[in-house]
């Protein structure tokens, strides 16, 4: 249960102002959609469409109708068909980052490969603080035409946790659904295991692929998550308020596209807000501006009654160092206090371009601490313990009290082996390791001693068959781990 009060950076009046501004942008300026099928569809639903320019102006009435059709929460299932978690309300879940192209090795990063993703998935699966496993890196061995499907293949084969993923092409979505159907026995729409990301191109543009993924995903009953990426001063106004307006307008246009295809479609109000550092032209996801944008955008999503997501709890550092710890804990705490339902970022370094096993282990510790923070302070006659305090009086020994034995577990969070709480002497005797070394040990222990939660042979064969069909269609003869 969430007790700590929610972090808000917009007042109710300011939320209403952002809403009005976004409606105005959508109705009068509109969005650009590079996909004729979406243009025809939206025109039929009452949007003002200029087919030549691709500009779609959406009347407020259509936005309001679409919002009313959105479920305020939905269940995600694990690979075994059990309900794993609900997305919505005040629940906060931590997910690994997605879409990295590099794998961290020591202080260096190299292009990621299939075996890297398998290791990352196995470690994320074994870390109890990580609730969802995203398709964290692309496998360099896979041809680009099926790299999206192959990522999902490796995740499904190695972890039962719910998944956040996304397609790289229009065909990618049905291909990936065929993999999900193989492991769920065709129950992908009834008991969804994976959320599909669809990213607008800031500001206010949808590519043909994203628009197709939204329409096809909604039609197929797959949960769709909109990941708007405002970039203040570059692709959105330099003001945070203006950037939230763009984020809101983009996401609302996605909501309209999905809900007019299939009313009641499961959607997530997501985001990948960044800062834009004018000194380097870089886009830090853990900048304080990105954090403010993430919280503000989540407030908008909550205002509309949608489940929310943001990238947070990550770092732009190039290695697991003090900066990585600082940025991860800061942005993760802020997003969690805002009660963003899905916080994606565990394991990410370097503007989500690089994924690190050791960072995954460290970030799981942060997620554990943050979940405890959210539980806040439990106040009741028993926890206040006024009678006990009065009875025992000054100088009491609480260590020997039954009250202590009764409550200490529920009240305390015990971090895992990555965080050090030994006294100096004990710490020195055990090698005087730093957090990076302990994270490495944690990862090695998991990989060596934890049994992989692989798919059972029967479904593994079906998954391989589904992957094979996609490979055959793309002229790909062989890929690591896929049975011949």
């Amino acid at each position: 249960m969430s007790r700590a009060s929610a972090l808000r950076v917009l007042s109710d009046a300011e939320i209403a102002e952002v809403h009005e501004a976004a409606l105005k942008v959508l109705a009068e300026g509109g969005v650009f959609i590079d996909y004729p099928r979406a243009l025809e569809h939206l025109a039929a639903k009452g949007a003002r469409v200029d087919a030549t320019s691709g500009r779609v102006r959406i009347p407020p009435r259509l936005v309001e109708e679409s919002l009313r059709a959105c479920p305020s929460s939905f269940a995600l299932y694990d690979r075994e068909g059990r309900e794993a978690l609900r997305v919505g309300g005040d629940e906060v879940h931590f997910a690994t980052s997605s879409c990295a192209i590099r794998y961290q090795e020591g202080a260096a990063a190299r292009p990621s490969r299939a075996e890297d993703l398998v290791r990352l998935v196995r470690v994320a699966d074994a870390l109890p603080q990580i609730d969802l496993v995203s398709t964290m890196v692309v496998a360099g061995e896979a041809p680009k035409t099926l790299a999206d499907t192959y990522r999902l293949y490796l995740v499904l084969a190695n972890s039962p946790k719910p998944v956040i993923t996304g397609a790289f092409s229009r065909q990618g979505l049905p291909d990936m659904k065929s993999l999900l159907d193989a492991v769920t026995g065709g129950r992908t729409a009834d008991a969804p295991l994976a959320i599909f990301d669809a990213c607008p191109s800031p500001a206010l543009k949808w590519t043909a692929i994203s628009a197709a993924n939204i329409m096809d995903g909604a039609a197929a009953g797959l949960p769709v998550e909109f990941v708007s990426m405002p970039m203040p001063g570059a692709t959105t106004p330099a003001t945070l308020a203006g950037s939230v307006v763009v984020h809101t307008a983009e996401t609302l246009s996605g909501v309209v596209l999905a809900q007019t295809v299939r009313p009641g479609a499961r959607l997530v109000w997501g985001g990948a807000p960044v800062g834009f550092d004018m000194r380097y032209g870089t886009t830090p996801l853990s900048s304080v501006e990105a954090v403010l944008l993430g919280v503000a955008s989540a407030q908008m999503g909550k205002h509309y009654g949608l489940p929310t997501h943001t990238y947070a709890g990550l770092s732009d550092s190039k290695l697991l160092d003090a900066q990585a710890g600082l940025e991860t804990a800061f942005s993760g705490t802020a997003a969690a206090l805002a009660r963003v339902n899905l916080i994606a970022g565990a394991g990410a370094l370097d503007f989500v371009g690089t994924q690190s096993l050791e960072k995954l282990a460290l970030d799981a510790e942060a997620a554990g601490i943050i979940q405890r923070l959210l539980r806040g302070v439990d106040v009741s006659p028993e926890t206040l313990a006024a009678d006990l305090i009065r009875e025992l009086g000054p100088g009491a020994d609480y260590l020997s009290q039954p009250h202590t034995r009764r409550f200490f577990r529920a009240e305390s969070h015990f971090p895992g082996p990555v965080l050090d709480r030994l006294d100096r002497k004990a710490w020195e005797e055990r090698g005087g390791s730093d957090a990076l070394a302990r994270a490495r040990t944690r990862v090695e222990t998991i990989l060596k001693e934890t049994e992989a939660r692989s798919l059972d042979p029967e479904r593994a064969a079906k998954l391989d068959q589904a992957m094979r069909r996609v490979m055959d269609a793309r002229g790909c003869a062989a890929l690591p781990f896929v049975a011949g």
Partner: protein
Amino acid sequence: MGQTLQDLREAILTADDVAALASTRELLAAGVEPRVVLEEGLAAAMLELGRRWNRGEAFLVEVVASADVFRQCGEVVEPVLLARGQKKAGRLVVIGTVHGDLHDLGKNIVGAMLKTVGFEVTDLGRDVSAERFARAVAELKPHLLGLSALLTTTMMEQKVVIEALRDAGLRDRVKVLVGGAPVTAEWAAEIGADAYAANAPQAVEVALGLVGAGGDGR
């Protein structure tokens, strides 16, 4: 009155388009060689801006603004230069974001930064088809072609462009530089690009290494 090249450089550096254009026109009217205005005024200012950027003293928004003023002034100088039978000194780079991709920020930054070292930059915009890239290479004869793709979904198009160049018999006439968030050196090698750059400053470095800036460039 009595505009100097220093005034022009200052106006470019502060992205004061009104002052820069006035200064450019006045210098030309006063009989200063157009080549001198271009090289010692406009290009020199952009080179200085590039040096400031590298020292962390210039902000990107300022580089982009100055590059735009630089372009406007260049358009004033160019006809005078051509009338004297002279050509621009800078080497030509054609850039664009590939088909299906609507992101152009990274490409715009690269374009602005290339100008800071003296390249002449023609920007084809975003969502540019392979045919259009090939046509631009045939018609403009650039030294360098820069292909941007931000999405994992669209980086395939970089390969399509290179194949289109090959099919049109143009591949040997131009160096191809690829970039964008999901792009890697391995990908560049796989699709037969000449080079890869991870960010705008690196794109400048790589471009200089591949073809040199020509003219006043380093």
